[in-house]
């Protein structure tokens, strides 16, 4: 990038909106996946949609790749800068633009923090349902990019369920609107494609969210089991009984130890801990909670506790929500993995993880959203011991391969980003990935928006779609007749 472009960008974003000094750029060289780092050429901090458009227009004209970034909490390197590119940080666009309670909509700028949406409407007994672990610091724009989940998406759905409309700056700088405050706008559901596209299709500058009324009653139960297998069997029992809890979470012994060391959640010491949350009308919840308790007992739970107060429920959750960070108490380094399996494969996959962990001589702590089969194995290692980091990475990949083999996915909520580009081709075939990239070619033919992420091989947008391939059934002479 030359001085003229820097001057132009400074004129757009102002002196305080452009960072070029190496010491300050360091802050932006990685996101939550800290082992991958790339220095950007510049960081822009726009405070309006017009500035975003102007910056993107310059990038388009000069063919400069750009990466949009929210709070930088992502765990797959989605906001990792690209070589010779710039980073556009959206945190200054952090206004809640509209709260429309009669229609249960909130319109926000992308830099608004997830928890602040609920904060704004909770006095009216509404909440914003997607609750990723980082919800007090992560931004809605980042949630849109990653289609963030959370513990309660079993019942309430993911970010994509709650995003109804988007204002988007396309990679050529033009501004368009996808979806809206109203459902089923005429045309393709491009809002549905944009959410979860990991910043590869453009930059959202305004987001219409759906909010949800707080349920009448919430009850949370903690059940201790000899191992995660019995806990998993209880989860299957709950599903088979026709219940859809708001959340079902399992932690294994190592994760429990870590949570205890970190936040003293007062969890029972056991091989597998199950947390079940039910919400809805009081009579319904009470009837179902009796059933859940019975199912836990029948599956060998030695201890069952029902939270007796909001404070106790908060403590139940505190241990679970702090589990990732808590692992730092029992291991100097760790890899947070994110894979999904069909719920029924849980016992098989867990014992396989245990076998692999023993084989590698590395400990694996397991925390998972059991209701939807989303595993978060934490592979513990010590960087100072030569070879251990590589062994941990290898083990972490083996675990994802298990997920694929079980018919699952390489990511349930953290995204593919830079981290899992190689893994995605083990989950999807070349034609599958190529078909997805047709969408990208429509949005971003020059491949400027977060260009190196998700896909291991970039489809050239110049490639003629539907390119002629000789078909075995085809005979010479047929084509010339038309």
């Amino acid at each position, binding site marked *: 990038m030359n001085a003229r472009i820097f001057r132009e960008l400074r004129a757009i974003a102002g002196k305080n909106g452009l960072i070029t000094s190496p010491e300050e750029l360091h802050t932006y060289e990685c996101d939550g996946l800290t082992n991958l780092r790339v220095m950007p050429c510049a960081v822009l901090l726009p405070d309006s949609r017009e500035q975003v458009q102007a910056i993107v227009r310059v990038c388009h004209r000069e063919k400069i790749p750009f990466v949009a970034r929210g709070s930088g909490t992502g765990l797959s390197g989605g906001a990792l800068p690209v070589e010779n590119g710039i980073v556009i940080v959206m945190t200054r666009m952090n206004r809640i633009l509209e709260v429309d309670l009669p229609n249960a909509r909130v319109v926000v700028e992308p830099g608004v923090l997830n928890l602040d949406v609920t904060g704004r409407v909770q006095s009216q007994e509404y909440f914003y349902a997607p609750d990723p672990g980082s919800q007090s610091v992560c931004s809605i724009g980042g949630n849109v990019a990653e289609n963030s989940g959370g513990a309660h998406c079993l019942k309430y759905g993911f970010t994509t*369920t709650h995003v109804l409309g988007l204002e988007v700056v396309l990679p050529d700088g033009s501004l368009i609107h996808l979806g809206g405050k109203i459902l089923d706008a005429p045309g*393709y559901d491009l809002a549905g494609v944009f959410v979860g596209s990991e910043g590869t299709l453009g930059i959202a500058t305004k987001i219409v969210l759906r909010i949800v009324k707080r*349920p009448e009653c919430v009850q949370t139960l903690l059940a201790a089991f000899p191992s995660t297998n019995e806990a998993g069997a209880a989860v299957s029992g709950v599903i088979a009984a026709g219940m859809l809890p708001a959340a079902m979470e399992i932690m294994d012994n190592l994760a429990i130890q870590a949570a205890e060391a970190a936040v003293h959640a007062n969890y029972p010491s056991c091989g597998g801990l199950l947390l079940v949350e039910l919400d809805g009308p009081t009579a319904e919840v009470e009837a179902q909670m009796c059933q859940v308790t019975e199912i836990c007992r029948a599956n060998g739970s030695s201890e069952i506790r029902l939270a007796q107060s909001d404070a106790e429920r908060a403590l139940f959750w505190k241990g679970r929500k702090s589990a990732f960070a808590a692992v730092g108490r029992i291991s100097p380094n760790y890899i947070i993995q994110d894979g999904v399996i069909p719920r029924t494969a849980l016992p098989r996959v867990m014992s396989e993880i245990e076998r692999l962990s023993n084989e590698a001589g590395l400990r694996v702590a397991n925390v998972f959203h059991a209701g*939807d089969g989303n595993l978060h194995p934490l592979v513990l290692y010590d960087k100072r011991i030569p070879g251990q980091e590589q062994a941990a990475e290898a083990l972490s990949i083996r675990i994802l391969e298990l997920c694929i083999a079980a018919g699952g996915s390489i990511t*349930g909520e953290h995204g*593919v980003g830079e981290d899992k580009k190689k893994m995605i081709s083990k989950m999807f075939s070349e034609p599958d990935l190529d078909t*997805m990239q047709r969408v990208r070619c429509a949005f971003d033919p020059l491949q400027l928006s977060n260009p190196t992420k998700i896909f291991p091989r970039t489809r050239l947008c110049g490639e003629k779609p539907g390119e002629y391939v000789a078909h075995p059934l085809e005979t010479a002479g*047929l084509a010339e007749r038309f």
Partner: protein
Amino acid sequence: METSASLKAIGAASAIEEKLREIVGAASVRAASLADAISDQHARIVVEPGSDQELASVLRLANEVGLAVIPRGGGTKPDWGNTPTRADLILSTARLAKVIEHVWADLTVTVEAGCTLQRLQDALSQHGQRLALDPLWPERATVGGVLSTNDSGALRLRFGSLRDLIIGVTIALPDGTLASSGGKVVKNVAGYDLPKLMTGALGTLGVITRAVFRLHPLPKIAQSFSARMSNLETAQRALHSVQNSKLAHAAMQVRAAGDVPPEVDVLFEGTKAGLAAQATHLKKSLDPVVVAEAPASVWSARQELWFTSDSAVIAKISLLPASIANGMETVRRVADHHKIRWKAVAEATGIGWLRLDGSPHYLHVAFRELRTEFESRGGSLAVLHRPAGFAPLEAWGNAGDALPLMRAVKRQFDSKSTLNPGRFVGGI
């Protein structure tokens, strides 16, 4: 010269039919009849492939030789969308009708596109589960057709629409590619969400060959309640007080018409104890309006709009949930002015269904007026059914500033406009 050209064309047509028979077998290729018409377009040939691969091969052949393809499931909604600009080959999914895998313990199902909703639900109910969707004509409508038209009923309030229920899809593209995206697990963010792109795309990007859905348990009991309202404004207040309450209703709708007072219907699903408490709560929150238990048939009101509808216009309304009464008042005003009869079912989500009866000319005028009014408030009005003699009218209305991008997506998937040409928004 002309004779020779048309003879050559006949020869080519029979050569193509021969190729099609080679792909799918002679019994699965037939000449189209009048019953196969798509609005006013008459295709020449109907092909029923027996597998994903056969379907993809047929599509590729058609694309190569320039035949326009109309994908078809149960054929229940041939008049939805614009009349196609060309129609040569009807690609039927009738033989792709298997429930491939119902993993009840995972609450998921993989099903072929040609399976009817009813058959799917029957299979799922054996394990006490369902696809939580109430589409039109489930005994004939297929998975692929319901997905492509994004049809949903009142249950959407609680369970979302197809975009929220579909977790995986396999499609055939015009170049013969068979591609899958999503997967078999409920939670999955690997790659782009093509299942959502295919939902509501009216088969203009690819032909859905199979889909994977997340399922819900069948409710232990369901109970419906209705309340007659003095006018639309009180109906709107009732909707709001239920929506703003802590009731866990599964569906809610307003039935309105020119000549009778509006009725609000509420559906509860759950356990016996839970339902009794909710019924009491509902009655209290709507007091002094009288709330009575209602038959489940109130939820057929949407489908009944199509009853002997030859001379009617039927349209899908989309409005903000808090503007339903306002929208219905607009319908009343415009309908009264043009002396036409109207009847509507509006769901609490803001999605509604409107039937207008009258002379084709006034229907046309009234419809255009209504569309202008709805669009000026950010809503939309799409035609689903037109009477004979109704002047041409774009089916969808304004697709907004993303239309150029939609065209770009179409070009990437179907560069020769082989699939349902002209049927979608903006002539896509």
